[in-house]
């Protein structure tokens, strides 16, 4: 459990009810009285069956969606509007197709009024840190799916947010690319230089230069709220795993502390006996919900 002193993100008794546009009386409760917190520097995963309202919860935390009831607090302050201390990695393609990779990473810095030359330098440094040095001039359609995700990661991290919200960011990637990226995210999160796991297209840039500029506070870990439907991924990466019930009216039904030692390698840790034990423990809770969610989807389809 997180230390009560420093909570980066608190969702208190959140409910989200959507109203159908066609029928005014038709309502759908996606999330019901959910309380969830993420400590500063803590890596928390939320797992649940597909279509259970995980993304809804994340949008509430980001301030993109206003909850029907309940309160969001960010470092103790009630949230109004967009969560300015959070970065968001979307499940779908979120890069601007009309901007090159570098310009995409730069855009957040430009919004904040960073002078262009400086923003450019920081963007290049971040692209190098996610292993895309030399790819700055490519447009998104010229990059592979994994490279686009790396660009999106650089775009989010370039703003040095205190909280990172991730919505199944790697679900569209093939399994090898996915494990590489998971390791890299863990390394960047832990304050490392990133980009040690995979083959590098270019030798690492010499330290110094733009290196210090983007991160600034390498020692301080960011709080991460990670949404996934992949239990393996959740356990391998997190400090804590929260299991959600099947929708509608999703709510947390289990919470598990992951006491595996760090640093972890997401591929190797799967063989750890403790991992296996945790997996079967959490799966026992999750399985029933997955079956429920599946049955509901079939009912809707019928």
């Amino acid at each position: 459990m997180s230390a009560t002193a420093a909570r980066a993100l608190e969702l208190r008794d959140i409910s989200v009810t959507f109203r159908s546009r066609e029928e005014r009386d038709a309502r759908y409760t996606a999330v019901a009285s959910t309380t969830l917190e993420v400590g500063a520097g803590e890596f928390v995963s939320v797992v649940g069956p597909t279509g259970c309202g995980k993304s809804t919860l994340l949008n509430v935390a980001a301030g993109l969606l206003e909850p029907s009831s309940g309160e969001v607090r960010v470092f103790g302050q009630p949230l109004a509007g967009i969560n300015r201390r959070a970065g968001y990695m979307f499940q779908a393609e979120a890069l601007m197709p009309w901007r090159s990779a570098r310009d995409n990473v730069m855009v957040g810095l430009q919004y904040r009024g960073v002078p262009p030359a400086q923003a450019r330098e920081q963007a290049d440094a971040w692209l190098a840190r996610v292993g895309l040095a030399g790819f700055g001039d490519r447009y998104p359609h010229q990059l592979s799916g994994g490279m686009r995700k790396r660009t999106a990661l650089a775009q989010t991290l370039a703003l040095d947010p205190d909280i990172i919200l991730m919505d199944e960011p790697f679900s569209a990637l093939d399994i090898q690319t996915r494990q590489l990226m998971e390791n890299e995210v863990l390394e960047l999160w832990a304050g490392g230089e990133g980009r040690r796991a995979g083959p590098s297209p270019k030798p690492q840039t010499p330290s110094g230069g733009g290196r210090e500029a983007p991160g600034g506070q390498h020692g301080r870990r960011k709080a991460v709220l990670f949404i996934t439907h992949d239990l393996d991924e959740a356990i391998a990466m997190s400090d804590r795993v929260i299991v959600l019930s099947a929708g509608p009216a999703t709510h947390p039904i289990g919470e598990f502390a992951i006491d595996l030692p760090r640093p972890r390698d997401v591929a190797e840790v799967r063989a750890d006996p403790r991992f296996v034990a945790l997996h079967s423990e959490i799966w026992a809770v999750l399985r029933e919900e997955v079956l429920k969610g599946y049955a509901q989807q079939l009912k809707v389809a019928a």
Partner: protein
Amino acid sequence: MTMKDRRARQQLRVWQVSVLVVTLVAWRLLSRNDQFAFFFGDPLVVAGRVWSWFLPFAMPPNQLFPEGLPGNADIYLHLGVTLSETMLAFGIGTVLGLGFGLWLALAPMWSAVFDPYIKAANAMPRVILAPIFALWFGLGIWSKVALAVTLVFFIVFFNVFQGVREVSPVVLANARMLGASRKQLLRTVYLPSATSWVFSSLHTSVGLAFVGAVVGEYLGSARGVGYLILQAEGVFDVNTVFAGIVVLTACALVLDGLVGRIERGLMKWQPWMGETEKL
């Protein structure tokens, strides 16, 4: 493979040119009949007219033109007028369409208020406005510009409107999470996204700007290619009418090619067919 491609393309060109040649020859042969020539003209005379319009030197009498051809070079004034009308209408119509499109797409209240009127204005046969514009702006170029603007405006307007509506919600949410203000969203998300829609409409609207200008001239003017055509029609000079049509078509093709050029320059972020992975 490339050799085969080139061969296929050459063959296509040959076929395309043959269609033109066959048409011209058939036209020429049929025009030996005087009655046919009165109504449909003679391609040789049409070509002669184009020569006289564009070239400053005469052609001496020869087999094709027994009387020779004068080199008047007198179309430039008229062509210049028509083209400047077209360009002005194209520019003004595009800017207005872009402005109104962005504004109404981002202000749902106003778009709801104006919706029936926009539909009505679009449904109206706008060519009929020409006499009114002639009354308001006189017989100079501005009445023609106004008519062509009404044609261009709606094309661009509807495309921008659609373009803004179809901005990817994820890209939008991402920009907001990255801290974009309303103005920054407009500049970095809505405008670039709408641009691709505008460009797809520019090909249509450049053609319509031309139509507006020529129809305006045709309905009352003292200069312009439309005026030349009207004059020729008054004396049953069908050859000059055809020559005017040929000149207008060539100009429209050039303008369209120009738009395509600009489009390729500005839209290089878009994957083109067959060019998706040009590294």
